[in-house]
């Protein structure tokens, strides 16, 4: 499923567009950046409540399709600017992480 479709189906607010045409393969959830660096796969979407600046670098390093901040967590403007500059999609949702993960799981499994 394309990133733009995921954004629409989950009702995400987009702060940085990234590549909307990119295919979201699967997803990864963690707030520990060392764990994301070790465990997320290229093409994964990343769901988290971690908003530190380093999330942009980690998403780029792991070639992720985008970052979704759950629970209404708002990143600092510098983080948004950095995501735009690096071409990393950055989205936010008011939903709790658990619900967001459940919805995305259904979508990617084709049962949305």
């Amino acid at each position: 499923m394309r990133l733009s479709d995921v954004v629409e189906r989950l009702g995400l607010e987009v702060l940085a567009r990234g590549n909307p045409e990119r295919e979201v393969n699967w997803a990864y959830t963690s707030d520990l950046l060392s764990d994301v660096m070790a465990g997320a796969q290229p093409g994964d979407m990343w769901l988290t409540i971690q908003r530190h600046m380093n999330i942009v670098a980690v998403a780029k390093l792991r070639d992720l399709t985008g970052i979704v901040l759950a629970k209404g967590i708002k990143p600092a403007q510098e983080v948004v600017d950095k995501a735009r500059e690096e071409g990393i999609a950055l989205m936010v949702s008011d939903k709790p992480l658990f619900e967001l993960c459940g919805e995305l799981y259904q979508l990617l499994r084709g049962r949305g």
Partner: protein
Amino acid sequence: MARWFKGDLHIHSTLSPCGSLYMSPRTIVEEAKRKGLDLIAVTDHNTCDNLIYVEKVACEEGITLIPGMELQTEEEVHLLAYFETLEGALAFKEEIYPFLPDVKNDPDYFGDQVVVDEHDNIVGVEEKLLVNSLLLSLDRCVEMVRSYQGVSMPAHVDREPYGIINQLGFIPDYLGFEAVEISRAIIPRDALSIWPELGRYTLVGSSDAHYPEDIGAVVTLFRMEEPSWKEWVEALEYGAEGVRIMRPFENGTG
């Protein structure tokens, strides 16, 4: 003339719930003196009220105190913050206190959080749970410490719980740390082989003591004219020429 002074700059007191009730200001200073330390820092979690009494005893015993505390940022990173004066540290504490979530400590589970004076009397109890994350980002904490002309240093960067590398993947360059602390579980050579990027920082080793016997379990030697704030900050800037981590059983005073 400059010489090497021995310091242990990460010690917890009775005010840290995880710290032993034996860690009174007097016990800490006397133990530090017994271990031959010249300078110490007592760094409780997100607060520093015991420093008032630590400084009194340290002054009597001729040990230099660097006022400090160990902040826990919203990313669950432990950050050591050091200040030139006790007043500075106390003012900083007042500023961050409102950002500590209003969760009450359960002494049976977490341990007591008590202020103990220089005569080993309990003179205060902290009700809010101190081992909690401030509602402040790491970047904001670094900035705030700087605004008090303080020095901040990520704590035990090699450790998984609350270490900056584990929490944030890597140490952000732009925060401009002069020094980082490694825990007593690792020696500098091993830390540098696992994380070569640590080579750009001055490495400081401290005990993170929660019990009297752990004080000075690892010490850092600082090359200074005298054990003062100004000289200490300069030593950090000199890196390996001004700062050396030493295990007490090694003889590396040179």
